């Protein structure tokens, strides 16, 4: 009960909430079931880690030694560190496909819903980036958790130091969320025709780019360009598609209507 309510005994008016409060409430709405954004992703990380330990032991047993530079380098190719991302792209989809109709039912504007959802993505991405960058450091410090098992020190992580890990993971996480969310938004706004146009134009764009690079014999140039960017540079470039997905999603959602 609000103050006005108890004073007048009527439900004829409500005390309006400020924009920051409304946007924060959308963040809270997404997080009301903590399993979705926190519980299940870390459960997946935990499971992946257990499996990684087993696989590392098998590799160690068959090659005759885990602590060797070769073995550490070999474990770099494991994608276990990214195991929760497949789940999180679906979470990004559901943030819109379930969250949008629910929020509208709760009288939230599209603008507040999108800003709250984007803020949630930023916060979760920052938290995950910090956690994974720290775990990578810890893994190196403990030489593979004292059992020569490397999961976080994999792919591009643990090569250029803590700050590059932090930045790159943040961008990657943000991209995963916004790609999921923007695909769901395209569906919410344009339904099936939107999906068909989106996926076919994406496929055409990729095939077109590959064709142009191949016909102009530019693959070596592309490889050199990527090499010159470095890990930090490549992820800085990836901010671009994340921003396009984020802002494009906002524009598309402003005119979207929930499904019945």
């Amino acid at each position, binding site marked *: *009960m*609000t103050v006005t*309510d108890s004073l007048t*005994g*009527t*439900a*004829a*008016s*409500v*005390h*309006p*909430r400020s*924009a920051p409060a*409304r946007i924060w*409430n959308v963040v*809270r*709405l997404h997080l*009301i*079931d903590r*399993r*979705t954004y926190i519980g299940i992703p870390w459960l997946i990380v935990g499971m992946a880690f257990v499996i990684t330990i087993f696989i590392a032991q098998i590799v160690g047993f068959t090659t005759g030694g885990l602590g060797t530079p070769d073995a550490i380098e070999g474990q770099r190719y494991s994608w276990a560190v990214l195991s929760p991302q497949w789940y999180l792209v679906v979470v990004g989809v*559901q943030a819109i496909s*379930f*969250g949008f*109709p*629910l929020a*509208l*039912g*709760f*009288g*939230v*504007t*599209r*603008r*507040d819903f999108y800003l709250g959802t984007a803020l949630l993505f930023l916060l979760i991405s920052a938290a995950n980036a910090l956690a994974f960058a720290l775990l990578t450091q810890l893994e190196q410090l403990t030489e593979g958790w004292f059992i020569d098992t490397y999961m976080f020190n994999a792919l591009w992580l643990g090569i250029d130091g803590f700050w590059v890990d932090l930045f790159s993971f943040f961008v990657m996480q943000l991209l995963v969320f916004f790609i999921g969310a923007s695909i769901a938004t395209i569906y919410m706004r344009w339904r099936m025709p939107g999906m068909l146009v989106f996926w076919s134009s994406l496929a055409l764009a990729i095939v077109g780019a590959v064709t142009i690079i191949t016909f102009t014999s530019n693959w070596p140039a592309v490889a050199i360009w990527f090499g010159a960017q470095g890990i930090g540079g490549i992820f800085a470039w990836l901010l671009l598609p994340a921003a396009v997905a984020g802002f494009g999603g906002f524009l598309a959602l*402003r*005119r979207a*209507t*929930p*499904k*019945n």
Partner: protein
Amino acid sequence: MTDTAVRVAGLTKKFGAFTAIDDVSFTVERNKIYGLLGRNGAGKTTLMQLLTGQQFATSGTLEVFGASPVENARVLQSLCFIKESQRYPDSFRPQHVFASAPWFFANWDDAFAARLVEDFRLPLNRPIKKLSRGQLSAVGVIVGLASRAPLTFFDEPYLGLDAVARQIFYDRLLEDYAEYPRTIMLSTHLIDEVSNLLEHVLVIDEGRILMDQDAEQLRGSASTVVGKKTDVDAFVAGRDIISRDGIGGLASVTVAGLGEAERAAARAAGLELSPVSLQQLIVQRTTSTTGSATLDETESKTDAWSTHS
């Protein structure tokens, strides 16, 4: 503050070539219970979605508490829209809904919500996906009542609710409305069940407002005259006949607007007068506009009526 909650003028909503809402104009006064009645696909849900900013109007003006509801946080905070097809996140349980609702509805009453949960015997901890149809409806009904929004829309809120649960809904709605007056718009098929609840009736058919009338006036707006066919025919001649039915030498004719003197005249002529239920009245009015093409011709009542239309 004016006494008007909703003002709609020339509102039209088209989905491609289909016109869901066709040049509709009406106003909704504050602190009354409105019934939005109509057949399936008449445009009830679309109209409510327009009023709550969930759909965008094709043309016309639409004001809720003095402004367009579309993307208007001030207006939307005063609304609560409970629709039969409301979707919830996959992992949600009823407790998640009731824990988050107070963040969006400033007048939310936790104690009232808890009482309703008991009334409807709703399992709070069961995943929403696993609730029965009636339990899912109860979730919406509880949010709609406990939110005490100044303007609350219930769109077919009780799908799958049993008779006991529906009665609880009507009772709690009336009790709470008496204590916390607010504007409520209820769309429903079960017209007779809610007819005592409604203070004003909006009937919509094929996207047009067919009736916009005080419920009390509407109930008194027609009577059924029963008696010998010849007597009845003599009495109703020249009157606005809404429907006609008969068996053998007996006739039962529903006519519009009888005054006190006319009622007395009918009784003097040995005719019986009976009130027409809101449901009968609306069924007769909505079928008469759609024409005989949509009617079931095998029904004797319809046959009797359509020959006179």
